């Protein structure tokens, strides 16, 4: 049997999760939005053939992982060196606002960032996350825990965001 879930339902239920994963992996800009679009377009193509009972969210997160890799490769081919780093505005005093947390996510060490993306935000188990990003399940567990601890310390307590950057 294949799925009988209206695709619109899948977008409504999992659209935000997939966008969080894309933002954590690619930063909160156009790349993440492109990855989201490519993910949901590819998933729509495959949708009628999806086996009934599939964990739709995990399936979408794995598609997003592949699309993020495609976009990272494309970006690397077209990268233009720049002397001007994007200006970092202070978000002190408005925790949880704008792209604050996403900027902090982008500043995490890569392993932590990817572990946070696929395990915490995408909901994939440690072992499955490890299969995507390399390393052991235990290493993923530690990296994601460290990453979340750093983000939570910065944001949940209502501190300024500067501390999480480096």
């Amino acid at each position, binding site marked *: 049997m*294949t*799925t*009988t*879930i*209206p*695709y*619109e*339902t899948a*977008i409504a239920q999992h*659209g*935000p999760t997939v*966008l*969080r994963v894309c*933002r*954590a992996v690619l930063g909160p800009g156009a790349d993440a*939005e492109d990855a*989201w*679009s490519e993910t*949901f*377009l590819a998933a*729509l*193509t495959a*949708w*009628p053939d999806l086996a009934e009972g599939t964990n739709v969210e995990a399936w979408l997160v794995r598609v997003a992982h592949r699309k993020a890799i495609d976009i990272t490769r494309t970006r690397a081919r077209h990268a233009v060196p720049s002397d001007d780093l994007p200006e970092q505005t202070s978000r002190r005093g408005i925790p*949880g*606002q704008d792209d604050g*947390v*996403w900027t902090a*996510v982008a500043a995490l060490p890569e392993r932590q960032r990817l572990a946070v993306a696929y395990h*915490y*935000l995408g909901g994939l188990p440690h072992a499955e996350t490890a299969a995507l990003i390399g390393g052991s399940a235990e290493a993923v567990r530690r990296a*994601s*825990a460290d990453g*979340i*601890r750093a*983000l*939570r310390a910065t*944001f*949940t*307590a*209502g501190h300024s965001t500067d501390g999480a950057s480096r």
Partner: protein
Amino acid sequence: MTDTPTTPEDLTARERTDLFPLPDETLDALRTRLVRRAGEAGLVDVAYRTIDTPLGPLLLAATGQGLVRIAFEREGFDAVLSTLAAKVSPRVLEAPRRLDAAATELEEYFAGTRRGFDLPLDHALSSGFRETVQRHLPEIAYGRTRSYKEVAELVGNPRAVRAVGTACATNPLPVVVPCHRVLRTDGSLGGYIGGLDAKSALLSLESSA
């Protein structure tokens, strides 16, 4: 936001949305862009939208072939969409523009300025005798009514009165396919998928316009 000193393993769905906020307008824009690209790629098998009418909200759904379903709110829109996903295709997307023509004609009908519909229809949800009956129903003119028995005669099967009743009760395209114009022989309303109030409202609209 709470300050509960939980371990990272306890990140809850609530905390996920609080700690990692997303702008609603970004998600809306992404969804709109997806629907447009899906349409261009021919991947929208069932498009739907809702409209407000004097009978309450109606759900309209169309395939590439034409209007395939009109549903009253009392039927449960989620249930109707699930049925479309199962019986037609799960590539079901809210794509309002694809139903602009149907929405306009229905609006004119409810305003009393339209007496017939000029919309392509997809009878994919019906088959056999039911489909035959439903295809004949538009022959009953605006403002007129027929009995179930008369419709049975119309489709050439005068003894199939009960089957005509079933065909009307299971009409997937109410209002546009005018099963509301079929009454009991004694003139009483019979049944209606949108409720008897909706049926009498449609009949009084047509008798007064």
